[in-house]
């Protein structure tokens, strides 16, 4: 009975250390666990007299093992603090790469939308902002010219008539 109790208690102690080890970063875990297991062996040796361990000593050993959690958390925090500055630099460069990637994807998607490509291209006209599109009456909403070139030239030579009030008067039939 005592042997069974001893084995189960020992298994519990080792399991406690293994569980605490999960908190330690993987790179340091092996050495950390080795140190704690070695210390546990010595703690048990100091507590157990003639292969028997009292209930009070069991509590001492259990308390020792529970301290491993504090140590694991402490080590984890130290390592995190140590690498924090490097991580910030890496985070900044990752952020820039991510934003550049996002901008590229957004640009490609925008180019797939109808009309975006022509809108994004520079205008072939010299003073595009001040250009007017002259169309025949009834052709509203079109982007293509609807008067012939000679008609435009004729209008150009008759500037004085272009801005006369009659131009803006709609024919009665259109009203």
């Amino acid at each position, binding site marked *: 009975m005592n042997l069974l109790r001893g084995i189960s208690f020992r298994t519990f102690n080792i399991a406690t250390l293994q569980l605490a080890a999960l908190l330690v970063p993987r790179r340091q875990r092996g050495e950390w666990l080795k140190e704690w297991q070695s210390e546990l062996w010595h703690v048990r040796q100091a507590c157990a007299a003639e292969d028997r361990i009292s209930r009070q000593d069991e509590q001492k050993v259990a308390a020792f093992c529970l301290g*491993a959690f504090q*140590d694991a958390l402490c080590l984890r925090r130290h390592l995190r603090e140590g690498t924090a500055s490097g991580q910030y630099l890496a985070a900044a460069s990752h952020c820039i790469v991510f934003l550049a990637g996002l901008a590229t994807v957004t640009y490609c998607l925008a180019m797939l939308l109808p009309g975006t490509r022509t809108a994004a291209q520079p205008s072939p006209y010299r003073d595009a902002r001040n250009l007017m599109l002259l169309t025949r009456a009834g052709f509203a909403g079109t982007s293509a010219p609807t008067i012939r070139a000679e008609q435009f030239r004729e209008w150009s030579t008759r500037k004085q008539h272009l801005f006369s009030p009659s131009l803006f008067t709609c024919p009665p039939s259109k009203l």
Partner: protein
Amino acid sequence: MTGEPRLSHTAAMILQAVDAGYIYGFSIMEMTGLPSGTVYPAMRRLERDELIHSRWEQQSIADEEQRPPRKYYKLTRAGKATLDASRKRYPLLAKLVPPHEVKSV
């Protein structure tokens, strides 16, 4: 260097214990009466601050004595200087942790 770091009483006691010859975790626990959850994290901090350094015992020595190898701690030069400053700050430190006779490791 601007001066030795100011240690807490617990850290100073652990440093004193290492200097006194209690060179592994469990012996420091026994000597100081501090729990494992205090001693081991404090030793990690002391090692991080380069006041102590650790090394593993040779496997052959441990095998001879049929036990797992231990991790031993030793004061660095900065650790000694810090301990001297701590002794001035905590005059009872040496009395709390008397020297320990140990075989050389």
